């Protein structure tokens, strides 16, 4: 779905990264602070240009897409977001429907916004001011905005779509964190490709189909969670000794000591 070849970017420190991000699967980008996760996500989303290398989206160079056509097919959730003026949560989520201006009816747009808010368990916040809700609530509302941006009614669901998320669970409580991870996995079942930068390796192990480990701007390990997250490579990337504890009934647990 998104395919990056030999991309390098001096600002953000990416060098020679090649990556295939499929639709209908969840890809987690992990790595220590400053590894280049956010930069990679930006480049994959077509928000930043790489100094060299190429990025294609659905087989077509990402720069050849018109901004609106691309916006209907890929959405991006930044790490944190300040909204300039006091705005109602529902109106903020409706901003996600901007690319559909003149294409879908107001009713469809509102239905998409409502569905997205319900999916992120933020529907009850719809009439609140965005500036007055908590950090975790804001993160869920922004997630609803980007889901609304690529939402389709059932009869148009076939089109390939991507959701790129920069640490979407960073300020969430454990309950909401798990709910969001489950939601993202469910979205992939509906055909949406999900790429996310994650700090929680256990979430990556449990929910991602594929894991990409970035270290100093390069991919040092990649594959299924168990293959990509071996103790040795994690230890060298994070500079702390990683240990993988296997339990009989659940996914392996990664601890650092």
């Amino acid at each position, binding site marked *: 779905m998104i395919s990056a070849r030999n991309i390098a970017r001096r600002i953000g420190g990416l060098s020679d990264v090649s990556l295939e991000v499929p639709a209908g699967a969840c890809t987690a980008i992990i790595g220590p602070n400053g590894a280049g996760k956010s930069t990679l996500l930006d480049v994959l989303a077509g928000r930043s240009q790489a100094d060299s290398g190429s990025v294609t989206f659905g087989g077509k160079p990402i720069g050849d897409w018109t901004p609106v056509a691309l916006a209907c097919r890929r959405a991006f959730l930044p790490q944190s977001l300040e909204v300039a*003026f006091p705005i109602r949560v529902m109106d903020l989520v409706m901003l996600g429907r901007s690319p559909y201006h003149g294409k879908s009816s107001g009713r469809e747009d509102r239905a998409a916004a409502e569905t997205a808010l319900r999916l992120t368990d933020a529907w009850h916040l719809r009439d609140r001011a965005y500036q007055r809700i908590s950090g975790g609530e804001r993160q869920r509302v922004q997630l609803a905005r980007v889901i609304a941006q690529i939402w389709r009614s059932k009869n148009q669901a076939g089109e390939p779509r991507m959701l790129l998320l920069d640490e979407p669970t960073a300020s969430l409580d454990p309950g909401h964190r798990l709910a969001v991870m489950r939601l993202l996995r469910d979205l992939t079942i509906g055909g949406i490709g999900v790429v996310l930068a994650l700090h929680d390796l256990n979430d990556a192990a449990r929910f991602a189909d594929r894991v990409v480990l970035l270290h100093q701007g390069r991919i040092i390990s990649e594959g299924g969670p168990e293959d990509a997250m071996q103790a040795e490579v994690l230890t060298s990337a994070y500079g702390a000794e990683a240990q993988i504890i296997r339990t009989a009934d659940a996914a392996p647990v990664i601890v650092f000591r």
Partner: protein
Amino acid sequence: MTESSIAVSEESVASPAAVILPLLVVGVIGAFLLSVALGPIPITLREIGAALTGGPVDAMLRDVILELRIPRSLMALAVGAVLAVGGTAMQGLFRNPLADPTLIGVSGGAALAAASFIVFGASFTFIPDGLRLYAMPFAAFLGGMVVVVVIQRLAQRDGRTDIATMLLAGIAVNAVVMAGIGLLTFIGNDAQLRTINFWMLGSLGGSGWGPFSAVGPVALVVVLACLGLARVLDGMMLGEREAQTLGFNVETAKRLLIVAVAAGVGTAVAFCGVIVFVGIVAPHMIRLAIGPAHRVLLIGAALLGGILILLADTLCRLIVAPAELPIGIVTSLLGAPFFLALLLGRGRDSSA
């Protein structure tokens, strides 16, 4: 939950707007009639009606109504609308509720050009007498545009306009412009000094059908242009990059907005001098009342800006009649405390 009970974005933005916008329209009509009626010569509504419909009315009164008051009130409406819309657009662009058109240098550049014209204009003998009335506004307009272009060029980074740099460049260039005006007041004689001062404080005293025929159409085009960019301004609430990610052509929109605001405010300033505070107060009040969605915000701000200038100009004519106070004194004296009260009131509210 049924479809009808779903809180619907557009409708619920519209619901305060559905009350406020008609009120503002009524307010504009009221303020307009008031500003036509009040002045050194009081005029009744009946006389206004008669003058407009060609009914029986004293010839001198008819002239006062048709040649002085009505063009002046139309001018106030246009200037108020364009200043408020300019303020709204700049606030959306800079993502800052305190931004106003002054930041992009249009007022400063216009003021410097006007002050230059006041001091040196007499030696510009090549200007035919018939065009003298428009020469100073034209110089002011040019001055405003030149400074805007300079500031925008300074803020270019890799082919895009860097808004933060633009803000800082604006402050620096405005300082230079103010120094230039200071120098001119130093060079000028007493009469010129008075003229510069008066102009810097703004006045609608020079209104007439001629100036209105320049300001009115420009104001209308600028308001419509900004309305056309309302959706981009909405997207800009999330920041430039997010607006781009939502598919908006942010770079083009920024340029169009800057040109529109520079042209609109430049024209207004050229004929009426520098009028402060309306560009900040009007959008701020409307945003508090009906929220930040720019389509209704721009319309509401335009209407409120018109009302504020109409009322302020009427006050200017009444307070020291038959003389006139510069309108900038009134907008600052009344606008600033009101604005402070709003800010403090809101601060208490949000800390509660």
